[in-house]
């Protein structure tokens, strides 16, 4: 129950409206009880006595109640519609916002479809429950209680029969509840799995097509889909038990009332009229009892949905400002941009193995440091620590001596601009994608950034230039083009600190050289950490750090390291190069003017 109770603050904020809905629901149920009484009166009274004049008043009553019932039904639905529709989107926005500020590491541990299925399927289940299930679930016991009380007043024995019937019903419900809740949870989780699978099968379509693995993907999908099917069928089977029990019990009670009532009439402790009235009331109570089965199933699904919703809302935000929140637009202080790693350890949450251990590194303001290292040596991890996409496990990362954990998260991210190895573009125009790096940038600045990233030429050739839509919903660009737009986004506004994670891997060497030069000339004041695989990139950096086994194994200029570090020579392909090639002259770069 707890997950559903936690929606109380939302309910309370609209409590007036919701109580009105409840009252209208109750009234609708009540009317069901009253109308037969009046029509019975009409038949037995005016009609039996052929008294046309006595007819008008009760008929008017029936008409008024009829109109009131219709209006009540209309009003209930009209009132509840905007409230629950609003709740659904409110909850989604909360879920969405929670996730937006959840750290990357936690994001990675969730399957994307599990998040989406919570945001869509579970919330629509909750909307339905609060619109219909809950009001009826709350009013049904009241109707049942009133009916039972009426029976007890009429004849305690009949009341007792009704109450006795409730015992097996409650047992059935209890058994059902446990199994159904468990199945419903598994089913909704499987729905999330299915969502993930669909998403992957579309995002990975190129791989599937190039290897002809669509049948394999279909098999995977089929397996999950079959599981979902069986769980849903299991739910239907559980439903069928409860349903038939709840259908059978009231009729058995009715038969018992007739049998016991007859005996009572013979014994003289009750009258035929009372028996008839008792059967009539039990008839009216059948509807809500039968509905109880449906309501219960609905409530259990809602309970599961609510549980799944709160699991996301309860995700702890571990990367926050000092006050535990995240300010979207904090004040940004003035920094020179000296970036320093002090004894930094890092390991992922689910493993003890250190990815970075005791790492020490200082980058002076305006300096460009190239980070090199073998595939999987932790370069990308290190880059992600600077804007606090992940937090270090031990040690400190500081800017101008200030621990980055003591800065507001978004102040830090304002100072630090990143370009990722997998360029991420959003579904909007080229201009907006670039402008993100420095909101409010002028068109001139955008063009300048594009020029630094060597993207100016191809952007100006795009169908709508800067306004061309890109991203998943737009024009499909090549990997190199996407990388260059992402780079332009990183460099626009001349950030204090620039972190470039292998930003030009899909770009030809010519272009890469041009970009490197432009970066040096146009952004001389930006402290730059660039992950590099190419000797040319490393050569242009002021200093090069070699990452190995989670620490800086060597530090120096490109030339120094070529001399001193065997590892560096290997990484740069220098030693192999010299051996493998018969043109030694080409190994000597004109820029360095020396031979390794």
């Amino acid at each position, binding site marked *: 129950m707890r997950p559903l109770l936690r929606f109380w603050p939302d309910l309370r904020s609209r409590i007036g409206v919701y109580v009105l809905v409840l009252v209208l629901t109750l009234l609708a149920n009540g009317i069901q009880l009253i109308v037969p009484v009046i029509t019975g009166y009409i038949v037995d009274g005016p009609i039996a006595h052929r008294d046309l004049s006595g007819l008008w008043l009760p008929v008017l009553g029936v008409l008024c109640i009829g109109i009131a019932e219709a209006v009540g039904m209309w009003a209930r639905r009209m009132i509840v519609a905007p409230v629950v529709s609003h709740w659904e989107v409110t909850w989604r926005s909360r879920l969405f916002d929670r996730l937006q500020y959840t750290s990357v590491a936690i994001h990675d541990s969730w399957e994307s479809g599990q998040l989406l299925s919570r945001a869509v399927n579970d919330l629509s289940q909750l909307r339905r429950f609060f619109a219909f299930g809950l009001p009826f679930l709350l009013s049904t016991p009241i109707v049942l209680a009133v009916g039972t009380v009426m029976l007890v007043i009429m004849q305690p024995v009949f009341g007792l029969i009704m109450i006795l019937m409730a015992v097996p019903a409650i047992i059935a419900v209890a058994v059902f509840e446990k199994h159904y809740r468990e199945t419903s949870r598994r089913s909704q989780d499987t729905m999330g799995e299915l969502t993930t699978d669909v998403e992957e099968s579309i995002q990975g379509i190129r791989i599937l097509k190039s290897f002809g693995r669509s049948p394999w993907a279909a098999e995977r999908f089929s397996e999950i889909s079959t599981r979902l099917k069986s769980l849903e069928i299991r739910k239907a089977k559980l439903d069928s038990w409860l349903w038939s029990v709840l259908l059978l019990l009231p009729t058995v009670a009715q038969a018992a009332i007739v049998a016991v009532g007859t005996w009572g009439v013979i014994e003289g402790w009750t009258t035929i009229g009372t028996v008839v009235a008792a059967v009539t009331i039990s008839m009216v109570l059948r509807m809500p009892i039968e509905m109880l089965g449906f309501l219960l199933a609905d409530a259990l699904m809602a309970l599961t949905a609510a549980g799944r919703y709160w699991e996301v809302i309860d995700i702890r935000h571990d990367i926050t400002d000092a006050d535990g929140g995240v300010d979207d637009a904090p004040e940004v202080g003035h920094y020179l941009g000296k970036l320093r790693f002090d004894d930094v350890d890092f390991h992922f949450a689910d493993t003890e193995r250190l990815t970075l251990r005791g790492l020490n590194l200082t980058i002076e303001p305006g300096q460009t440091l190239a980070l090199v290292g073998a595939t999987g040596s932790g370069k990308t991890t290190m880059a992600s620590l600077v804007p606090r996409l992940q937090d270090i496990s031990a040690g400190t990362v500081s800017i101008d001596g200030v621990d980055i954990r003591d800065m507001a998260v978004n102040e830090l991210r304002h100072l630090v601009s990143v370009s990722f190895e997998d360029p*991420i573009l959003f579904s909007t125009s080229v201009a907006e994608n670039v402008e993100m790096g420095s909101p409010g940038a002028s068109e001139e600045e955008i063009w300048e950034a594009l020029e630094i990233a060597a993207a100016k030429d191809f952007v100006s050739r795009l169908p709508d230039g800067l306004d061309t839509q890109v991203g998943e919903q737009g024009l499909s660009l090549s990997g190199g083009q996407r990388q260059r737009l992402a780079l332009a986004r990183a460099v626009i506004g001349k950030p204090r600190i620039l972190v470039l994670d292998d930003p030009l891997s899909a770009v030809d060497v010519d272009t890469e050289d041009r970009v490197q030069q432009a970066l040096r000339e146009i952004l001389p004041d930006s402290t730059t950490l660039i992950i590099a695989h190419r000797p040319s990139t490393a050569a242009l950096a002021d200093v090069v750090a070699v990452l190995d086994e989670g620490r800086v194994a060597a530090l120096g200029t490109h030339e120094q390291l070529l001399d001193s570090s065997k590892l560096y020579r290997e990484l740069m392909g220098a030693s192999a190069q010299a051996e493998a090639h018969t043109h030694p002259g080409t190994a000597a770069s004109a820029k360095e003017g020396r031979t390794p």
Partner: protein
Amino acid sequence: MSMPRLDSDDEIEALPPGLAKKARALLMSLVRPHLAMVVFLAVIVVLTAALMVIGPVFIADALDKGVPAAIAGDMDPLIRAVTLFVVSAIASAILAFTSTRLVGITAQRILFTLRERVFTHVQRLDLGYHEKSTSGRLVSRQTSDMESVQQFLSYSLFDTALAVLQMLFIAVTLVVLDVPLAIVVFAGFVPLFFITKAAHSTQRSAYRRTRTSIAKVIVHFVETMGGIRAVQAYRRQPERRGTLSDQDARYRDANTDALRGVAWFAGWTRLIGNITQTVIIVIGAWLVIEGWTQIGVLAAFILYLRRFYGPLDELVQAFNLYQSASAALEKIAAVLDTDPEVVEPTQPRALPAHAASDAAASGRALDLDDVRFAYADGPDVLPRFDLHIPAGQIVALVGATGAGKSTLVKLVTRFYDPSEGRITLDEVDLRDLDDVQMRSSVVMVTQESFLFAGTIADNIRIGNPDAGDEAVVAAATAVGLDGYIRRLPDGYATDVKKRGGRLSSGQRQLVSFARVFLADPDVVVLDEATAHLDIPSERLVQDALATVLEGRTAIIIAHRLSTVEIADRVLVLESGRIIEDGTPDELISGTGKFAQLHQAWRDSLV
């Protein structure tokens, strides 16, 4: 500037005329295989409806005749009536039990079929479609639209039939009881008809709006969560939140409209039912008083009348679920209705068998004759050209971004078909090859190295699902990934989506390569595939490649030019044209574009 791409979006979202009809046809085609079950369920419906009408008769009988008889000392009528009542109740319960199960099973089977059908169809759609569409939209078809269909199938199909039948039974009873009164009841159907007609059109448009708007919400959600790194690094949260609330506002309004449409529909229906009831009482009373109708008949009439209009509520509910489901089915039908532009041949031709002598690894000749390519009716991306690659040749494609290398590769791998001309593999047109043979023969490693949920071993095994563990390890070893994998918490069984198993982009590329090692194709196509690797890894991969490519035909796109070392032939592309073609040595020693590029690349090393 923040205008969403409505034009293209609506193009895909736009509902071609006759789609409502297609949605119905789709529903029919789904239900048809379960016809026997449907007939059986229909029988259950008839029985259930009959019992619902008869049950109260037994209890009335017990009260009217049984009790007085019992008081008079004759227990038999009472016992008989009560027994019949209980038996009918048990029968009802059994029928309800059976129908709930069967409806659940049938609905789930239908949904299963529909899901599979959509999934396989989406997989069959060509890359051109996928490049225009978004994953979020297709995900919404498989999730929230399916949910609408499920709601309808599980909760209303059976109930609708039951309600209709119940009304039919009662209608017959009413006519038998009293014809003039029955006519009054049926007169109520005239306004109901018009109300339903009006509701049909308003509700359909409201539900279509809910489907379209929730799809946009899903697209936005998927994009935000997929790009969470950039969202956080560039502090996009307020803006993303704004877009979500705009889109959700549209969904909320559509939903409110749909629910309010239900309110009007349900309200009117109930009003008409209640007014009819009043009219019946008045006319009935008048008829009774005038002596034209029996009082007992009127009493029964009033009793049945309430039960007659009761199912209308369920019909209203079912009607709305149907409207919502058909809006969803329209969207699904639109996907299923899209034909892939790259189609499988109806009468595939087989590739000639390899000569026995070089069965181990033998390439195939790849010929592009008079090929021209343009997207839809855009300008030519690749103007008319010929290219002949003999079996076993390794070709390197070189050229600036946008020169047409990727397009050429997409044609060779049949992601697209050429606008004109033909591409043949050992003299067989690619369009005549069946997909399985085509894909096992030509394999491509793409720029993006996507990993699927599952273990690392599973991901490598995409190259060849039948490969044993040793083959997987061998492939990983060949590309230099084995050592890293063994250090992971669960080795080859590490889940790639778990944090500790998160691979760097370089490692993901190695996984891509390992897949090729397992795939054992005739033709290998590598698209800028070594971009994220450090030089030693790249060299390791290239050494391994040199072994695996031995004897196979290969096309390699290489910006880095290091791959050129293992190539037999280099093609330099510029603006979609092949401007240089020769062995690496010839071109390097020449004065052309490649010689310049090569020099620049040499300079970049060290």
